[in-house]
């Protein structure tokens, strides 16, 4: 039986700025299981990224709880001083603009999150090489980000996200800056991580052609989470028909 690895209970987030108040998320209840590849879709400003930041312990919810891991650690009340450890050990991030350190080589970028967890520099290097091989760019290990293509940079970012063997990978528009072909290879890679390595992938995207690769799809509109969305359902159906290798679909499930 699959175990729940991420869970939100009545999660809400309100932003206050210059006297204006914006309800970014409202009462989101969600349960994600180990090995799930979840696509969160929604129009711009709907609250997709806000949900990702709360799941990734990057921001604090205004209301509700976030439970991380199979033991359901409540991170909502944790101080920032403890959250960094959760991020380092259990979560991996893949971002739209890759966010690689420009003065470090591909190999050094992958090694970066291991600092503090793996003491031996040799072991860090060895593991980084294995990961670069896994994302199929072992020949680029000495190259700086500016010497890599956008697709290669995102592969380095994926390898970096996997550095500490996290259970959950959170991807914020990972194909947003890539061409269609490269986007497909990246999404395929994420899909394989979920199916072959049983890692949980939560991907925020507005692109139905990428979302079809996820086995679960969730939709956000005006800060509220939905299992179905008339606009995106149709777009997904079309994308599925045109998809080169049609992925299996499973029904998204909202927590009770």
């Amino acid at each position: 039986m699959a175990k729940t690895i991420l869970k939100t209970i009545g999660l809400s987030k309100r932003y206050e700025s210059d006297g204006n108040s914006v309800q970014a998320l409202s009462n989101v209840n969600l349960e994600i299981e180990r090995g799930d590849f979840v696509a969160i879709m929604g129009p711009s400003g709907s609250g997709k990224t806000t949900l990702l930041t709360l799941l990734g312990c990057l921001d604090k919810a205004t209301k509700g709880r976030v439970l991380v891991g199979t033991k359901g650690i409540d991170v909502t009340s944790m101080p920032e001083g403890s959250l960094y450890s959760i991020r380092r050990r259990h979560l991996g991030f893949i971002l739209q603009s890759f966010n690689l350190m420009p003065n470090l080589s591909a190999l050094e970028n992958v090694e970066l999150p291991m600092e503090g967890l793996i003491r031996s520099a040799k072991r860090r290097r060895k593991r980084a090489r294995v990961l670069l091989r896994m994302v199929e760019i072992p020949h680029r290990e000495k190259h700086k980000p500016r010497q890599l293509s956008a697709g290669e940079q995102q592969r380095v970012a994926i390898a970096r996200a996997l550095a500490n063997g996290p259970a959950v990978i959170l991807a914020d528009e990972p194909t947003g800056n890539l061409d269609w072909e490269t986007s497909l290879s990246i999404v395929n890679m994420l899909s394989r991580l979920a199916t072959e390595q049983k890692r949980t992938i939560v991907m925020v995207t507005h692109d139905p052609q990428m979302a079809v690769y996820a086995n679960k799809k969730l939709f956000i509109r005006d800060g509220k989470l939905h299992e179905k969305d008339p606009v995106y359902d149709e777009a997904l159906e079309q994308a599925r028909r045109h998809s080169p290798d049609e992925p299996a679909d499973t029904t998204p499930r909202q927590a009770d």
Partner: protein
Amino acid sequence: MTTLKRAFRNILRNRFRTLLVGVVLALCVAVFVSVLAGVDASEDATAQMLAEYAEAAEATLEQTEQSMTQIMVMSGRGPFSEDSEEPIDEDIVDEVSAMDDVAAVVPVVTQGFGEPEQGQEPGMGGGPGSGMGGPTVSFRGAEYMVYGVPLDPDLDEEYHVLPVSIAEGRSLEEGEDSAVLISSELTEYFGAGVGDTIDIDGTSFEVVGVYTSTIMQNQVYMSLDAAQDLLDMEGELSTLTVYADSVSAVDDVAAEIESAYPDFMVMAMTDMQRGSGDFIQRQQEYIIGTIDSNLASIQSLGIGTIAATGVVSVLLIFGLMFYTVRERTKEIGTLKALGFSNSDVMKQFMYEGSYIGLLGGAVGLGIAALAASGFASLILDPSGTLGTSVSVGITLSATLLGLGVAVIAGALGSLYPAWRASRVSPMEALKRE
């Protein structure tokens, strides 16, 4: 890759900016170290100057105090009277020596030689090259004075019977009866120097030494016996210098000599020398005060400059690191998202600031090693006194201190920017460009 190594690589990311800050920082460190070394050198030089001056002043005072025990005994009514040329019987030496509280007796035979030029008046002092300008004026019209004194090393050491400042050759030695010591002014007059022979009243003397003096410029020193032979004064003396045991005994000794030899003029030097002693003491206090005040000015200026360079260094690093943190906000957010703690981030930026401090410090020390004297003179002593009199060297302690201060300035300057960096939200990583 360790945080230290990453920090080092980070400072090389914008080489021009790092170089610019590094150069200014290096100059600050160079000035800092140079001024520090300059103040040190000034203190050493002043201490040495004061020690030398104190030694000289002590010797002068000692000499003055000794002079205060001095009593002159002359025949007749004094040096300017006709009867002063009446000789004194040499037996007086033993008689006066036997008196109470008499420490020493120095018998002297003296006489002027040479003809004055026409129109000159007799008078005290002067002589060839007296430096007084105008026509040569000599004692009783003489061009030089023969001065016969006992060549007793112990007596000379204690009472400086012979001139102290020998410019060439040597002083007279015990038993030398055909040698003379002449003043540097008289070398021109006689046309003779050390090793030459001069003729005085038909007798030849070898010049063994040349002395310098500001007041005794026309003396030819020789042994008492030689002078008595030359002047045909066997068993006779011209004057007598008597030294009492102490200043308090001078008046009693003078009174005793006066009562024993009522025809002689007896002069105690106490009062005259006392005034001179007071003057020397006042002058010494004034000079020490001036030297101390000059050193205090240099020290204040040095401390001010050192503080200013320290503050400028800290501000420089602060500006650079503050700008760097603002520029790299997204990168810091990414580090936080990857699991870097606040202290990890803070440490990295502190290391970066300290590295720049270290590099600037090392270059600054190089500059200081080449131009320490120039910097120190320019800042501490623009008039050039220090530069010519004091050699400024960079010591190991100044090197370590300069390097330490540079690194501390780097760490201090980056403290607040690094703290700001540690407070950057990991949310910054997700901001779209």
